[in-house]
């Protein structure tokens, strides 16, 4: 399953993170997004297509314009991916706590 890996490569790039931030509150056209960066327009297009491919962004036809917006569900998945790691520590710490509570009682 390489899709997940792609998602993390996608958000590892500073420009792509900036794009996601920009789109956090509004949907925008590629042109409007590119206007926020000094980077060449084709580079921004490339970033947008990577973000779209891994479903972090979705496109929406709006008359003649294409608007990009964040795919909240996918962003949630990105959050969820640390859940197993969190659970591991939760279990360890629960155990630590119960062991030391008994220790305290000794």
């Amino acid at each position: 399953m390489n899709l997940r890996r792609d998602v993390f490569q996608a958000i590892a790039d500073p420009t792509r993170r900036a794009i996601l931030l920009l789109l956090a509150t509004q949907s925008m056209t590629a042109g409007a997004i590119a206007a926020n960066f000094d980077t060449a327009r084709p580079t921004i297009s490339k970033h947008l297509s990577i973000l779209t491919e891994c479903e972090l962004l979705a496109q929406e036809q709006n008359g003649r314009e294409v608007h990009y917006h964040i795919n909240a569900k996918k962003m949630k998945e990105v959050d969820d991916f640390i859940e197993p790691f969190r659970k591991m520590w939760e279990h360890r710490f629960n155990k630590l706590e119960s062991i030391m509570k008994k220790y305290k009682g000794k």
Partner: protein
Amino acid sequence: MEQKTKVTAPAGKQEVLITRDFELPVELLFKAHTEAEIIEEWMGNKVLKLDARKHGSFDYLAIDPKGNKHSFRGAFHDVIPNQKIIRTFEMDGPFGVQLEFYDFEKITEDTSRLNMRIIYETLEQRDGVLKLPFVQGINWAHNTLQEVVSKRK
């Protein structure tokens, strides 16, 4: 269920933050991190070596259900009783060495907080560690228990 342990992996930064409040005096929380027998109990690893003091080191061994051995090793850079542990941590595999800061904080006489900050050499290493299947398996004993419990549902 309440989530007592908070984990944050900031986007684009090669670090992970872990925070947990305990219903334990800070002295006991700290002790659980520096005494071999106690560590074996809650980490589920064998402690082959533990010299929890400045410039000391540790060597842990975990055996998975298939009988494979996994080593976890590192060196203590600083150990300040009931306050702080700074150490490195390295496991088998392409995951590099991580630098760990443990901050022990007294909240009340009977409660305390642990703030852990783990810094990886690269973002790729951090994400690699977070995505490891071992993350679910590292505490095999707990996992087995969890399986038993979830099968009853």
